Structures are given as structure tokens and as C-alpha cells.
């Protein structure tokens, strides 16, 4: 591992200011992604290797879970995934989020990995994660997956770059209409998670709207509306410690088996968590059964543009939409 400078931040403002001072600085919390990135020497024309790390674990009061029936849920960005998953408030009111928080990696990683880090982690594309591939995302001028090994790549919304978003909690938070609280040089601001992630066409070098010197500080989830049900499912090759081939988060108000309103969000299929608005439209006002769910799945996947090796993911996505949606009424 190459050498870097290390700062411990005392406040969010301090961390933002230090980020502003160093062009190649990065914040670090659990470190399970950032340190691996540096160890693997992942650098390119548009992606310099971090030479400064700013530890935000030293900022006070950044790990907490506050739930209130009117204000909803507030999660400090440094709350560990284990804490989120084990919270009775989360389990009771947002079961989809609780499942999503226990899905990544292994217990040891979830014990240090934070919810903020899970949202902000970089994609797992093996070309991006290989030191010798100067791809678009590292500021190069090529996507190696298009003609290469693309069995894990995007089936929806791929262009230029065909990464898939790796986070399990991000689809769950979007399905629950959550908002990000962000600290930047001009103070705090709110960004709905629905608008938080950006695709390669907007900016291929990053995956969120955050600027270099902006930091995700808190996650706010509104209180669940009456009759809301939520679920998270994930398909992996091995039983644990695996990124999603396809994941899905669904949250909806369902009255007498009829879908009133809700969101369907897929992970592992597109460069951002994929809001399946076609599925949502197909389900709205319908009494949920396998046929209705299949229609929603077909309406979503008709837009799929699989690559040479990943058509099987279209089948998985279709089937998992049916499974997740029907599970809400079973």
C-alpha cells in the first residue's frame, strides 16, 4: 500500500474544509472500500489515487438512530450496518431497510462498515477494479466490458460505462423515499435519494451528485404511511459475502390487496439504483397477484438491453420483481 497523509476531523465543517484543501483527499469511515481502492492502486487520467485520508470517525455524534412517529427515522451516516439492521425501530417500521442493512458482506465488515459508506461505495466492475484498465470511469476513453467479460454488468441504462450500482441499502432507501443530509462549503442541504445518484452520461467519473468537498452526514426516512409494507431481496451466487446479481427493494401502501402507491427499485442492474417506474405504473390501483406482478416485471424489462454475456440477469430481474411484489400480499 502506498503512503498517504492522514487527518482526523473534529467536525463536519472541519472535514469539508480539509477536503477543500487537498485535490486528492478522500474521507474514510469504516474503510472497507476506500483502503481497498488505494491498495489496488486504482488510478487513471481522471481518477488520481487518494494521497490524503480524512477520518470522520473522530467527529462526535455521527452514529445514531432516532425514530419518531411524526418525524420518521434519522440515521447518522456513521451508524454501522449492524446497528441499523439490529434496531427494533428499523425492523418494525422499515423491514425492507433492516433486511438490506444485513445483506452486505459479512458480520465483521458490517460491524465496522457504515450506512453512509454503503451508500457511497464505488462500483465493483472488475475492469474498474483492475489497475491495468484505463476505463472511462478512471478518466480513460474506453469501456472494456462492451467487448469483454460482461456477465455481471448493466442490463438497463448502460451507456459509455456499464457498471452496476453495488449498494444494498440505496435501493431500500429510495423505495422508502428517504433523503440525504449533506454538508458542504455552503452549509447543510437536503437531497432526496431519488435524485442522489447519477449515471455515466451525466458524469462518468462519479456516481452521485456530491461534489468533492461535500459529505453525506445523515439519512432521513419519512414515517411510513398507513398500510405500508416493505421488502428487500437479493440474488447472489454464494449464500453470503457477495454483491447482488440483482437486488430489489419494494415499499408500497397496500389496502385489501390493492396497490395504492409505492416504489420498486432494483440494484445490480444499472449504473444507479434503478427506479422501476414502469412497474410502479403497472401496479398502481391494481389488486396484486402473480399476473399483475408479471406484467409489471415485463413492462420494466422490455427496456433491458443485455450485453453479450448477461441476458440471464434479465430473467433474474423479471422473476425477482414478481417474487418481491407478490410477497407483499402473501
Amino acid at each position: 500500500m502506498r503512503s498517504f497523509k492522514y487527518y482526523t476531523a473534529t467536525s463536519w465543517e472541519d472535514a469539508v474544509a480539509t477536503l477543500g484543501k487537498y485535490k486528492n483527499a478522500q474521507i474514510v469511515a469504516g474503510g472497507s472500500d476506500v483502503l481497498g481502492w488505494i491498495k489496488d492502486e486504482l488510478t487513471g487520467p481522471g481518477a488520481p489515487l487518494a494521497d490524503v485520508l480524512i477520518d470522520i470517525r473522530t467527529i462526535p455524534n455521527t452514529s445514531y438512530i432516532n425514530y419518531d412517529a411524526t418525524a420518521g427515522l434519522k440515521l447518522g451516516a456513521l451508524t454501522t450496518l449492524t446497528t441499523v439492521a439490529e434496531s427494533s425501530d428499523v425492523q418494525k417500521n422499515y423491514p425492507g431497510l433492516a433486511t438490506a442493512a444485513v445483506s452486505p458482506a459479512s458480520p465483521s465488515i458490517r460491524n465496522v462498515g457504515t450506512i453512509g459508506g454503503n451508500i457511497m461505495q464505488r462500483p465493483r466492475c472488475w475492469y474498474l477494479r483492475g489497475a491495468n484498465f484505463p476505463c472511462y470511469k478512471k478518466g480513460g476513453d474506453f469501456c472494456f466490458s462492451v467487448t469483454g467479460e460482461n456477465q455481471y454488468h448493466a442490463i438497463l441504462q448502460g451507456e459509455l460505462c456499464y457498471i452496476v450500482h453495488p449498494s444494498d441499502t440505496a435501493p431500500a432507501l429510495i423505495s422508502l423515499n428517504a433523503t440525504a443530509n449533506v454538508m458542504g462549503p455552503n452549509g447543510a442541504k437536503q437531497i432526496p435519494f431519488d435524485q442522489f445518484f447519477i449515471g455515466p452520461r451525466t458524469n462518468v467519473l462519479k456516481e452521485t451528485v456530491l461534489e468533492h468537498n461535500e459529505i453525506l452526514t445523515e439519512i432521513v426516512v419519512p414515517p411510513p404511511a398507513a398500510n405500508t409494507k416493505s421488502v428487500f431481496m437479493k440474488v447472489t451466487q454464494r449464500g453470503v459475502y457477495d454483491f447482488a446479481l440483482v437486488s430489489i427493494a419494494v415499499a408500497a401502501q397496500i389496502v385489501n390487496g390493492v396497490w395504492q402507491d409505492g416504489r420498486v427499485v432494483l440494484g445490480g442492474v444499472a449504473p444507479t439504483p434503478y427506479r422501476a417506474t414502469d412497474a410502479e405504473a403497472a401496479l398502481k390501483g391494481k389488486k396484486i397477484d402473480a399476473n399483475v406482478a408479471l406484467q409489471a416485471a415485463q413492462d420494466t424489462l422490455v427496456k433491458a438491453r443485455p450485453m453479450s454475456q448477461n441476458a440471464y440477469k434479465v430473467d433474474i430481474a423479471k422473476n425477482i420483481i414478481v417474487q418481491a411484489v407478490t410477497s407483499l400480499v402473501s
Partner: protein
Amino acid sequence: MPAAKSYVTPLDYEKMTPEEREWAVLTGRADLDRAMKEGTPRSTTPPASPPAQPSADYAVVGKPQKDLEGYRIVTGKSTFTVDVYLPDMLYVRVLRSPLPHAKITSIDTSKAAALPGVYGIITYKDIPAQVLAGLKPVMASEPALVGDPIAAVAAVDETVAEDALNLINVQYQQLPFIVDPIAGAKSGAPLALSNLQSNVSGPDFKVVRGDVNQGFASADVTVEHTVNTQDQQHVALEPHIAVARWDNDVLTMWTSSQYTHAIARIVAATLGMPYSKVRVISAFTGGGFGDKTAVYPYHLVAALLAKKTMRPVRYELTRLDVFYEGSHHFQVVQDIKLGFKKDGTLVALQADSTARLGAYSRGSGLAGDTLSGARLEYNIPNILLNGRGVITNTSSAGARRSVGEASGMFALETLMDVAAEKLGMDPVDLRLKNINETGDPESKLPWTSNGLRDCITNGASAFNWKSRWQGWANVNKGAGPLKTGVGFMALASNKGSKSPPMTAVVEINVDGSVRVVQGAAHIGGPQRTTFAIIAAETLGANLDQLSVSEPDTAFTTDTGIVAGSRATKSVGSAVKAAAEDARAQLLGYAAAKFSKDLSRTVNPQDLAVTNGQISLQTDSSVKPITFADAVNSGFIIVDGQQVPAAATIIGRAVVPPVTQYAQQTYAAAFYEVQVNVQTGVVRVTDAMQIHDVGKVINPLQLTNQVHGGSVQGTGFALTEDYIYDTATGIPVSSNLDDYKMLMINDVPKITALFVESNDAVGPFGAKGIGEPAFMAAAAAISNAIYYAAGIRLTSLPMNPKRVLEALKA
């Protein structure tokens, strides 16, 4: 059956590297070639069937015994090489080629050398041309795979060394490269190395028995398929590592190794030193699975940088370094065809095997190894086998749990299942009908024992096969998205044999304690515990009297490699023979003492040894004596005369190779899988393996070996895949996220059962285990997937992509 005329292409031993010769000995190939050349030994006509060894009720053998080193290991008190830190030690990092094939046109290390904390740098310019690690360049001038070593830096810590690597300027001239072995075998393909005439390495491996065309002409049912198995990594928990220190002209090297003596011998020869001046130590080895058997560039890098800097040097490879520099289980493409009479009798086998050798492996031997089981498992009068190795710009092919046999058995045993359906037979019955219970048809040597029939029948009964497998009419009959099915395979393997060198010393000390001195690696078997059991049983000692030496070439004997699943049978044979020698001496001392104490002549043959007590069988009124009493008695009977004795007994053994028998291990495997036809995910839900181990030495650790092997075999079957990007020649699944090892949650209930066939040459009748447990999985899983979901998968791994694609096809 007509007398088959047989022919097997012999290997060219003159042209082989020491490692390749060791491999040939290990796999029984050398025995076969010798027997084919010289004929079956005539002076010592082999018995028609192996002599039954006494099946006495043993005191120690056969009882469950924890690893005697277990407490030290789990409390962190054992010294693995990664625990070795020396004063003033420097740390090494290596710059590796980003290109699969290139020539270095210039290399400038001056900036790196000027970095504070850097003490030494080597490149190909510092290494004489004849200095190679096996066939791998220590530092490459013509890198032939991504990851070939280009420059090595020794610095005060790893961070400084890595910063220095980034200051080295290398200019490459890119050269054409080849990744795919089938394309590489064609004429006009880019050459993997500029000094090659062809990527196809050496003459084909070829076996001819009978007349294969006539055989297929006489067949009522013919089946065939093409099987593609993948590159697979070892992923030993302890990474490859060498720590080197020079004391004047003596080199000491700590390294995580399966064979210290070979490392010492080859490092010495490579550096032009006497073998006696290189000392190699591997007190504990954190896993190897075949990849810690040979000298690799990192051993020589550590030695050369330690010499250059005059300081101790430590090179611990990163996981990526290991993936690049190690030699791996190799891709094999096999076409295989079987012919049967309609009653299920096998009449013909034709198989063709192409192995991807990577850049620094040679010959057709590895391809031949994939065909070994097919040649020997069943009675087949007509055989034609062809195998070739193709040199490519990928990591080298080498030993990885079974070498090529696992791929070969996958091809054969999945095709046997296809045949069983076509014949309308129970797959169990089809195997039972065709077992070769006699011996090697080519060498004409009989088996030391063959328990395959018992493995199959005992397993079928324990697994309840007859009710869980409900005939071919019930393939893919499950309702719902989760489909359950069972599958079966049989296995014959050349691993687990007795092969030279086999040496050991057993010392009985003045206090009656016993030390077994031998040089085999302690690598999970757990080997030292096995040797202690064998020595204790042979001597009549208690297990707590025993200690077993750690591998250190300065103090231990060369007893061969811990690979090929040979340790129990080979090293165990040496330990047993040395213990017998020590026991004979011990009884001499004891007889002298009894004679003196009782004032009458007591002969050694009048004595018995049990639980560490030596007693006079002919007179139970005489109080038994201890080992210490005997050793301290002061006299020994030699040729009926009392002579003064030394106070330590040293029993020794150098065991000759097996020449009268051919050796195989056998197993049957029954697996149940659940196939999710919506996601393509396959989970193993029940696993049972039944192994012919000859004789159970330690049931607890034997069961552990089967559990470990089954998990590895399931990973080979379902998830593990070392994938190359063919456009760039760069491996992409070169990290432990994308290279998917199974996790504990993926492990089902595994049942390990054993057949004791009483091997004619093994210690107490034992054979080896380890690799057979790895091999006895993939075909059973594929056959179970077929029974569950109606899809035949012939490429590995059988991941969701392949399952869903097959379901759609």
C-alpha cells in the same frame, strides 16, 4: 475379453525439470513408464491378491484424535512463516508486467534507488540467464503473462517499497499474445514466447488399448460430450512468503512450503551452492493445495536481495501476487466418448484432452493426468486417449488439488450418467457392472486394494439412494421454482499413493519419551498427528510420549513432498518402519534388563509392549518396565551376548518404492442439490462421500479432510472461476470478491464414510485422502442438477448464468 495390446507414450525424463520428475513419481506415472519399459517385475511375482494384514484391535490407530498441534495453532503460538520477523529486516515489493507478452526495451530504476529507505533493487539485468525458478524467470526480460516479475525492491517497509515501484520507468515493446488454448494450438497462432516453434508443447500424450474403432462398431449405445473446465486458484490462507537471511555463505530461508527439502535443493542448485549450505524451515504451513511445492521467483528474489543488501529480507506476496505468480489448476477442454453393450458393459472409450499450460509449464503430462482415471476406473477393452498441452500467455498450469484428475473425472462421470439414462439403467448399477477390480491393464500390476464396490454399495445404502433417486422417468419432476434432485459419481484416482523418498528417524530418549524426526510439512492433515499415531501404535507407546519434528532441512530427513495426498501412506510407511527399527532395539534393551533382573535369559520375542509398558508375556508375575527403564538398562543383547549400550535408541528407515503393485484410491459421492430455476442459483443441500482409505488411522481428522475437500469441490463445481479478459490478456476475477470461494453458509451437512480395503503396502493398510475428497463432488453435483432441473451442464462453474442459459436452450 481379447488380450489387449497396450501402448502409453512414455515421458522424456531427461528433458524434465526436477519438479516435473517429482510430479511423475507422485502420480504413479514413473512406475507405469518403468513397468511399460522393463515389463512387470518377474523376479518377484506379485501375489494374486494383496495379503490381508492383521485386523487387530489397535490401541491408538483408528481412535479419534485431535491435532496434537491444534492448541498451539488456535492460540497463535505456532510459528508460521508470516510470523517470522528478524532484526534489521527489509521488505520486498515487486513490479509486475501489465502486459501479457512484451519485450522490455528499457528499464530505469535510478529514481527508485534514490528514494530514502530503499536498499536494493534487482531486475533481469542482475540475474544470470541460467537462473530460473523452475521454468519461470526470476525477473523477466520478455514477460509472457500479466504479472510476470519485472523489478524487485527491498526497503525499510512495504510502503516505501511500493512508493519506489512507482518510480521505476519501464518501456515495453508489446508482442502478440494468446489466451485460448484451442486457438493457440492452431498453426499461425501468435507464439506465447518468442523462442517457441509452436505453442503445442512436446509430443501428445497417447494411450492405445485394443482397437477403439472396432470397439465402437460393436457398441449398442454410444454417448459423447465436450467438457470445458476452468482455471482455478488455490487461495491458501497463508500467502506465499519467503524470509531469507545470509550468515556468511549459509542461506537460511523460512518459507510457507509443502516440501522444504526440495526448496533447499533447488535454491542451492540454482544459486550454484552446496545443498548443505541452504537451510529451509517451514514449522507450520498455512495451506498449500499444491502451490507451495516448487521454487518460484519469490524464493530467489528474497535470497538475491538478502545477499545484495546484506540484511535479512522478507517477501510476503499479496493475494494478487499469488494469483499471478502461482501455478494453478488449468483450463482443460475434453471431448469424451463411451461405447456400451445394451446390458451396460463398457466396450470403448475415446477421449481427447487439451490443457492450457500458461507461460511456464511444458509437455503433455498435465493433459495426460486428466485421462488417468478414465484409463483405470473401469474395464474397457478398447481405448484411445490423446492429450496435449498448449502454451499460453496466462498464469502457469500446475499442481492444484488433484492436478488434472478432477477435470477428467468430471468429464467421465457426467458422461456415465448420460449413458445410464440412455441405457435405462440405475447409474449406480452401471458403475458396479464395469469396475476394474484387477489392476493396471497397461503395466499389468495388480491393485494394492480396491474398495470401490464397497464405497458404492455402502454409500447407496447410507444415502438411501434407491428411494431418493426415483428412476429416469422422474427427471425434472419437482413443482415450483425450487427443484431438488440427487446425483451420484464414482471415483478412481492415482493420488494417495506410496512413493519415494520415504525416510524417518524414531528416537527413544533416556526418559522414555519418543521423538519422530521427519521433514514433512504440517499443513492441515494434520500430518504430525498422523505420524505420532503410527509411531505410538508401532512402538506400543502412549500418544503423550510422542513428539514430532517440525520441517527444517538442517535437522530432518528428506521424506518427500506433502502433496498428491501421499503423506499418510508414504511418510507414514517410513515412520512405521523407523518405529519398528526402534522397537526392535527397545526390546533388545528390555530383554537385557529382564535377563539381568531375573537372572535368567529373556529373549526379545518373549516381550510385549502396550501403553508404554514392556511386559514379559511368558510370566505375568514379573512387573512390567517402562521405556525409560529399558533405555537405561545399560546393556543390550546382540547375537545372544550382552554388550554395553548407548542411552538413546535411534530407529531409522529408508523405505523402497512400491514395484509389485499399482496404487489407486477410490470413492463414491452422493449429492443433493436445490436448483432455483428463477434465479439460476444452485445450493448443495446434502453431501455424502464414501472413501476407500485402506484403513482409518484417525477418524476425526479424516472426516475433516473430507469436509474440506467437499467444500473445495463444490466451489470448483459452482462458483470458482479465474477469468481472463481475452482482448487484453489480463485476468479479471483476480480478487476474492470476483473469485468466489464458498463461505461457511454455503456448506451443507456433509457425511463422511469410509471403506477399509486394507491396502497391501500402506501403514496399517492405510491409503491417502485429501484430493480424492475434492474430486468426489463436481460430477455428482452436475448429475444432481440434471435430475432436479433436466439440464446437463458440461462447463464449470455451474453458476446462475450457465443454469439459466441452459434452461432457456
